[in-house]
């Protein structure tokens, strides 16, 4: 069995009457990307804050080990093993990017030349060389996030927590960030990632846990989770009633909407699924005016995962 980088049993936390985490079990093997997926207020950030020793776990929590160390008994050993990039930028805006990096090097007790080398390497790797001499407060959102991660990497942490690393980034910066995260794991680092985007978890994570209302609603690989989601479908729209009738005949498993002359065919949206639909339409000689693929999104996940508890809500 592989070693666990993070192992938490019955993680709990409440503020007054408000229960934020209600018994969360987590097991993250070393060298993998684990994603905690959930909407705002699900408790993702609280989980990261506890696991990264920023706040204490609730008194009723079970054993929590991070990097092989007990979180409550030896928080300093945990801190020595981890790196954290929180949701809100953790850079010192008043000093330059380079000074931020050297500050981290000093706090990791690197020697002067070692620190300077590490700072220069990471600034280069994260494309911050040009901006290195400017105050971090003047950086764009994407640059701040890159500096933030670069600072987290000083001292080579074995476990990295990333709390919504791409929230608020433009698509290009988001893809850059994904690339960065993939590179981290190729070095054997464990990444614990929170996100509200299913797509992001899908792209990056080996395993995904869906956190809803302080509880894990489901856990598994992206594929396993998607099987739980009935939301994916292909939608065909017609203007010609004859073509519409032809399509209905050739695709009997579709859901009809006679008013708008459109059909919904349950589908994961894969190439093979699409080809099979198109081939059936072609062989029947039917041409659709519009074809859209609806992939499962977080709404669908939650609808699917909460509907088992609340059957009433499945009726739309």
């Amino acid at each position, binding site marked *: 069995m592989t070693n666990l980088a993070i192992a938490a049993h019955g993680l709990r936390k409440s503020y007054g009457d408000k229960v934020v985490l209600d018994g969360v079990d987590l097991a993250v093997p070393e060298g993998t990307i684990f994603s905690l997926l959930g909407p705002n207020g699900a408790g993702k950030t609280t989980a990261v804050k506890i696991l990264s*020793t920023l*706040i*204490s776990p609730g008194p009723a929590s079970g054993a929590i080990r991070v990097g092989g160390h007990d979180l409550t008994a030896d928080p300093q050993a945990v*801190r020595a093993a981890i790196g954290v990039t929180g949701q809100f930028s953790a850079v010192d805006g008043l000093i330059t990017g380079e000074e931020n990096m050297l*500050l981290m090097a000093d706090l*990791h*007790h690197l020697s002067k030349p070692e620190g300077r080398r590490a700072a220069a390497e990471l600034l280069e790797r994260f494309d911050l060389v040009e901006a290195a001499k400017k105050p971090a407060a003047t950086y764009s959102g994407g640059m701040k996030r890159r500096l933030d991660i670069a600072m987290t990497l000083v001292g080579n942490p074995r476990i990295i927590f990333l709390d919504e690393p791409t929230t608020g980034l433009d698509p290009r910066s988001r893809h850059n960030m994904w690339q960065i995260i993939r590179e981290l794991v190729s070095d054997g680092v464990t990444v614990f990632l929170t996100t509200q985007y299913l797509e992001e978890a899908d792209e990056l994570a080996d395993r995904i846990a869906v956190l809803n209302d302080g509880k894990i609603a489901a856990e598994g690989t992206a594929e396993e989770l998607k099987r739980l989601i009935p939301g994916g479908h292909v939608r065909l729209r017609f203007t010609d009633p004859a073509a519409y009738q032809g399509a209905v005949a050739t695709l009997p498993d579709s859901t009809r909407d006679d008013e708008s002359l459109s059909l919904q065919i349950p589908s994961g949206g894969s190439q093979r699924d699409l080809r099979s639909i198109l081939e059936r339409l072609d062989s029947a000689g039917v041409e659709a005016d519009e074809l859209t693929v609806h992939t499962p999104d977080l709404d669908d996940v939650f609808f699917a995962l909460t509907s088992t508890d609340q059957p009433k809500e499945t009726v739309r």
Partner: protein
Amino acid sequence: MSTLALAARDSSTMLRRNLLHARRYPSLTLNLLLTPIMLLLLFVYIFGDTLGAGLGGGRSEYIAYLVPGLLLMTIGSTVIGTAVSVSNDMTEGIIARFRTMAIHRGSVLVGHVIGSVLQSVMSVVLVGAVAVAIGFRSTDATVLEWLAAFGLLVLFALALTWIAVGMGLVSPNAEAASNNAMPLILLPLLSSAFVPVDAMPGWFQPIAEYQPFTPAIETLRGLLLGSEIGHNGWLAVVWCVGLAVLGYFWSTSTFNRDPK
């Protein structure tokens, strides 16, 4: 690395960070320096003749009377900046980062405190230079008395800084920090800094006499100008040590609590 060596190393890193902030953004420090300098000029050149006459002399006698109190008031003014910058700092994400790193916990605060004490000393030197420029002279002070005066100023700065750090930590934002720290610059007005305690209403005299500023002012006066120190010496030291210890425990326990 031993705990002490770790604490020293991390604290000096944090000190460097704070000095970098102060050097790059000196406006806050300089603004706070204006208050004591303006008060010095105001009391010497506008009120000086009358107040000097009240002491049985003139303006030059009043300069001698006023300066020790103003030097200590300068410290009170400087540490308002400490409260503001600590409060500002706590709203920054970087503090959360520090909390998740294997560094000495207290180093964040120690860095602020040492940085602030150094700033206080520099401010005192600047205000002192202005005072000398307008005619303040120390009389009959030996080298030992000078050193003692310097030591008292540093100890007083340390005490007020720890209190100001605590105030900064419990303040939700910079405005609140500035308001909470306001008593540190108002207290000198209710001390023997501007007029002798004997000249105040009888019911108020005990308050003025035993608040932290008056014993320190009287001690500094005695060291620089040779006036009677009496029980004010040990009273000043007790106040300083007491406030420093109180501020230290208040600040560290506040900082060690879970952040919001």
